[in-house]
């Protein structure tokens, strides 16, 4: 049986594990030739311009995660409370964006959010604003685009947890004298914590590694770590520094994953064996 796993192991060993190890090697390679150095890490974590990018990445990822949670929770609740057949139909709407090319969706958002775009002309026509709002190539654009891409990752785990909650529990809470709001807060909400945890983890973990969305919908102030890495490789040809940034990003991602996985047993969601 182990032999069946062989080809997959060989592929990942040579083209995934070795290259990642190689990145770590580059990140500590002394430019002079021999020896190891930590200068690239020090540079990434002390120089203001780089530190700002790192903090920005976390800050925007946090905004995106919170907004996704606020939008997804009621939708997941709706999906869990309507009849199965309706839920399946609505679920197609939730997963459809998954299947539309990322570039197509971001391109559509540029069309929608630009100065003469649909959103601005609607706002103008309704008299809500007197001149077009800057909605793209800034923080607003990045958040709209990222929330749109990541929302299904929040809805799906919430829905799967809510679907498993026995509705009688809510009825019982109310029969015992609780108000509907109390029943929700004290019974339903705590039961959905695993779903909230899984969704928050997924969205935050994916967010901090984002590259394409901030590059297309953001401005200079919304540069993400991934864009910084790309610049170091393609424009500045500083492989060592790029490798150090990549190693930092990888470390943070793995730590976030490990901590949440410990708390929630997410491997079950990934179909662990």
């Amino acid at each position, binding site marked *: 049986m182990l032999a069946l796993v062989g080809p997959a192991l060989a592929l990942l060993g040579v083209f*995934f594990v070795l290259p990642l190890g190689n*990145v770590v090697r580059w990140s500590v390679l002394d430019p002079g030739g021999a020896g190891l150095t930590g200068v690239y890490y020090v540079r990434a974590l002390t120089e203001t311009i780089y530190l700002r990018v790192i903090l920005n990445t976390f800050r925007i990822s946090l905004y995106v995660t919170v907004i996704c949670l606020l939008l997804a929770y009621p939708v997941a609740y709706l999906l869990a409370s309507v009849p199965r057949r309706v839920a399946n139909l609505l679920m197609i709407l939730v997963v459809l964006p998954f299947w539309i090319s990322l570039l197509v969706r971001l391109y559509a958002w540029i069309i929608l959010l630009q100065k003469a*775009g649909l959103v601005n002309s609607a706002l103008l026509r309704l008299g809500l604003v007197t001149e077009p709002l800057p909605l793209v190539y800034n923080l607003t654009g990045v958040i709209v685009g990222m929330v749109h891409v990541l929302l299904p990752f929040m809805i799906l785990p919430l829905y799967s947890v809510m679907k498993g909650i026995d509705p009688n529990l809510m009825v019982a809470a109310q029969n015992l004298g609780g108000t509907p709001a109390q029943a929700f807060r004290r019974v339903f909400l705590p039961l959905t914590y695993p779903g909230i945890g899984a969704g928050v983890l997924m969205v935050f973990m994916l967010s901090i590694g984002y590259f394409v969305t901030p590059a297309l919908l953001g401005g200079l102030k919304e540069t993400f770590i991934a864009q910084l890495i790309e610049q170091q490789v393609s424009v500045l040809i500083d492989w060592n520094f790029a490798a150090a940034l990549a190693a930092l990003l990888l470390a943070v991602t793995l730590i976030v994953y490990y901590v949440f996985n410990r708390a929630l047993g997410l491997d079950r969601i990934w179909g662990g064996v």
Partner: protein
Amino acid sequence: MSRPAGPGLRRPRRWAFYGFCGAVFFFLMLPVLVVVPMSFSSSRYLQFPPPGFSLRWYSNYLRDPEWTGATVRSLVIAGFVTLISTVVGTMASVGLVRGTFRGKQLIHSLIVSPMIVPVIIVAIALYFFYAPFKTWGMPLIGTVPGLVIAHCLLALPLVVINVSATLRGFDRNLEMASQNLGAGPLVTFRRITFPLIRPGIVSGALFAFITSFDELVIAIFISGSTARTLPVKMWEGIRLEIDPTIAAVSSLLIGLSVTLLLAIELLRRDRPGRAG
């Protein structure tokens, strides 16, 4: 079993709840609703609604060898990725689900880890790793094989997750019965296991295909100037000269996605024990 919509809300609040959810669904669908009409615009500017109807952006796309070349290349790469990752991934799933050996959990984690590691890191890792292959006479940067290998890393976890789910879902006694009746492991796989896990294999293969066909970040680094894929061409187009040709390409891609999604939906219906 259904529960009253909204946490026991009175009527006005319940309508607010429905309205909120409706707005979120609208938000999810909005880009799709915009792109398709844009692709039939007669104007070269991104006006919405379009001033008139025209197919010029579709003919623009079909007549430009750069666009069609990139499309064919992406299809070829996605085809190879689907083939390789489905075969390798199905083998690995059978080994992992049926096997009993040490380090199983570790191997499983390794196989799904390309889904967790940010793709930019995979991209530069492969870019650094591929670079010396050129001097060894088998360049992997700017070539189709280099991209196929890279995309297989991302596709493999999707195949393994899908196939493992179906493998765990059926009665193992069927395999044992087959072997007790004298069939060897290969015959058992071909006649018993394979037909039962086929829905998982096919949906894994579809995921693999779409993952490769849609992959941009790795392709930006690996495709060079000689093997540009469709997403790379679109990426450059969106950054440099936004014209509705991209909307035409996008609409074609939406058509492809909807077709694949329907195929998966139909497969899910066939799969026993996984309704909903």
